[in-house]
């Protein structure tokens, strides 16, 4: 394991420190491991808080800023943060109109945010929660902890952030977030595992000609292991279940997100995008918006995920609304 780190124990704190130093116009760090929008909570605006284990950068701190999150709570590597910093972030994000917690559906994240919401409630901060669960790799949620939250999270954060910015109240922002979550599905592949610094060895072993289909974003193994295939074939394996689960029909409009897992060259993401887009178009689906890049990563894992979000005019307008964060920025 070779990493540009000093001490495995200090990776998260040093990385957050560096991130905040590099973006003084956007973010500030609170006492706890909380990254908040510079200038503090916006009076009258619903606050947005998200968080989860570190190792998914730019998620979440990279999405703090105007038009998206008010505060992010990075936990230890791949480990949900504890309730305390979540409460601190909730306090920092509250402008009097309540706070939306955007939580990826993992037992740890759900439980810690749940406790934090109770504690915030005790401080008279109104909290609503959206649980993001876009991963279709988790096939039968009756027999699992339910579908995981993966790359779709960034779309929930962007679009709900725009709704908050335009002045929607907490119920309204929550409804938008839930609509995004209801219309977004993802599936990912790993060509290599990642190595958590303190573990020092890869999260799983793959032979030179094997890949993992249906991975999560914590270096977990996927649903199944298949022989290496071409980019187009792999893209089909990711896109088909997404389209099917969404029940996409010809004529529908979508956003197509091809997300890199951290160690994949941009050119490969473009190749995956190219095929996914063509396949969608062959099915009569109109790709109105696109996002290609590293947004929700698993350290240096090689691989990608394909995410499709069903769009309507309102969601498209909210997606297009100005945003100014370290990792997503336009119109500002």
């Amino acid at each position: 394991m070779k990493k540009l780190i000093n001490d495995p124990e200090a990776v998260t704190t040093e990385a957050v420190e560096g991130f905040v130093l590099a973006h003084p116009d956007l973010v500030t760090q609170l006492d706890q491991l909380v990254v908040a929008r510079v200038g503090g909570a916006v009076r009258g605006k619903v606050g947005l808080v998200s968080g989860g284990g570190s190792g998914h950068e730019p998620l979440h701190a990279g999405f703090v800023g105007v038009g998206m999150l008010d505060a992010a709570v990075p936990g230890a590597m791949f480990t949900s943060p504890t309730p305390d910093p979540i409460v601190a972030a909730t306090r920092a994000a509250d402008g009097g109109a309540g706070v939306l917690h955007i939580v990826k559906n993992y037992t740890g994240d759900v439980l810690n945010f749940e406790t934090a919401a109770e504690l915030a409630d005790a401080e008279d901060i109104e909290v609503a929660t959206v649980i993001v669960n876009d991963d279709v790799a988790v096939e039968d949620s009756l027999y699992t902890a339910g579908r995981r939250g993966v790359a779709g999270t960034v779309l929930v954060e962007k679009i709900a952030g725009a709704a908050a910015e335009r002045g929607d109240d907490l119920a309204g922002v929550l409804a938008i977030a839930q609509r995004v979550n209801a219309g977004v599905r993802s599936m990912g592949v790993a060509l290599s595992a990642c190595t958590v610094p303190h573990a020092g060895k890869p999260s799983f072993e793959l032979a030179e000609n094997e890949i993992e289909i249906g991975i999560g974003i914590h270096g977990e193994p996927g649903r199944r292991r298949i022989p290496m295939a071409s980019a187009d074939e792999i893209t089909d394996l990711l896109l088909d279940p997404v389209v099917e689960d969404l029940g996409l029909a010809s004529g529908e409009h979508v956003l197509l997100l091809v997300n890199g897992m951290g160690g994949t060259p941009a050119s490969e993401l473009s190749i995956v995008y190219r095929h996914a887009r063509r396949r969608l178009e062959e099915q009569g689906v109109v790709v109105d918006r696109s996002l290609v890049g590293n947004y929700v990563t698993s350290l240096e894992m090689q691989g990608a995920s394909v995410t499709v979000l069903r769009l309507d005019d309102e969601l498209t307008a909210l997606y297009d609304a100005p945003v100014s964060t370290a990792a997503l920025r336009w119109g500002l």
Partner: protein
Amino acid sequence: MSEGALDVDWARRFVAEAAAVVAEHRVELSELDRLIGDGDHGENLARGFSAVTAAMEPAEPATVGDVLKLVATTLMSTVGGAAGPLYGTAFLRAAKVTAVPAVDAQGVHSLLDAALEGVVARGKAQVGDKTMVDAWHPAVEAASAAAEAGSSPAQVLRAAAEAAAVGAASTDDLVALKGRASYLGERSVGHRDPGAASTVLLLDAAARAATDA
């Protein structure tokens, strides 16, 4: 109080033993978690229990419950992940039924029963879902039987720890239905649940702390 009741000193010894055993098995627990989860369970608990050790230092607990409550809040605010809230709630519920200077055999059973209830209240897992519940549940049953049979508090804990070990071993053959391992489906079979394994370590630490009394 009855014969061999477990007092605040036991609770302190238990915490020290638990911290030691978690530190010792840190890599092993993370390795279990790497195979069917995300490889951080040992790290998470080690971080939590070293914070617990630091928190215990200046504390002056008057009851067993005071100790368990400090453990609960410290774990809750340092572990994170699934294990943090689950163990946190377990200790918190256990603390509520042990707000006394010492616990007898029935008290030990109540303590464990409350802990299990806490885990289930938060995690909604059932026996057979391949989680720490598969260790806690038989532990509580064994504790109940032992207490009924008039065993000493130490014997009750020993019985609980042994049943937990059997329960943890039973997770090897299970398909996970809760927690991160559930995403693996059939691929989770053949591996031990890390939370069940750490439950055994903690109960064993509690039993040893009682025997040392």
